């Protein structure tokens, strides 16, 4: 039983972000509801943000935060457009089943 650490190693944050990132990917691969899938992307972005913030703490810079900020803005924009697209899809097909959006193939 190793002694309980009082400070957190950098790597723990990174591992955490890795886990979240992978979970996002997992959701993308496993969920069939388009909106959920989209949310998983957001989760991945969050994971990335965590990495940025952690690194900027390590580097004692603010740039990481800035980047995070921009990611958030982009996420917002994507959310707006993405949800609009999902709306049109739903309007035309009455479904959010991602696997049914596969008329064009091969």
């Amino acid at each position, binding site marked *: 039983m190793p002694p309980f650490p009082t400070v957190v190693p950098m790597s723990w944050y990174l591992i955490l972000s890795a886990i979240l990132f992978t979970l996002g*990917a997992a959701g993308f691969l*496993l969920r069939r509801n388009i909106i959920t899938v989209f949310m998983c992307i957001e989760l991945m972005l969050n994971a990335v943000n965590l990495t940025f*913030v952690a690194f900027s703490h390590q580097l004692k810079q*603010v740039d990481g935060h800035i980047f995070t900020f921009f990611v958030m*803005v982009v996420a917002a924009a994507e959310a707006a457009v993405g949800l609009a697209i999902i709306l049109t899809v739903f309007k035309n097909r009455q479904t959010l089943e991602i696997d049914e959006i596969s008329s064009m193939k091969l």
Partner: protein
Amino acid sequence: MDAILFLTFAGIAVACAINLVLQTHPISSALSLVGVMTSLAVLYLLLGGSFIAAVQVIVYAGAIMVLFVFVIMLLNTQGERMLPKKKVMPVAIALPLLFSLIGVIATIVATQVPSTEVVKFGTFAGGDPLTFGRAMFTRYLLPFEVTSVLILIAILGAVVLAKKEI
């Protein structure tokens, strides 16, 4: 103290994330995503990102997720029902992939990031609004301006796609 906070909220974040993936109904996924975001905000604080933490809660957990929930309500979709049709993405393929992904990244982190690097609350306060604002409006002026275009595009796109025929 750091460790406990980190572990707690990291735990919550992971738990919510897992829940997000496991839930079949989008609304519950959305809620768990909110959970992830808020707990991440705490971690940001631990990392000295006071401003970004605030933004995380307000913009992300607040605005964006609300938008999500709104749309989900609008479409009032049911949860994914278990359809008999063939599995497009067998779990048997997905899981090994994901584990190898996390595995690879984790190995790199574990082997490459020196363990001397530690995070201690308060050792870095560069994330306060002042510094942030300075940087944003000097070095990063241009991207900041361009993001306005980005938002414009988003609005325009939403209008184009969602407006009723005139």
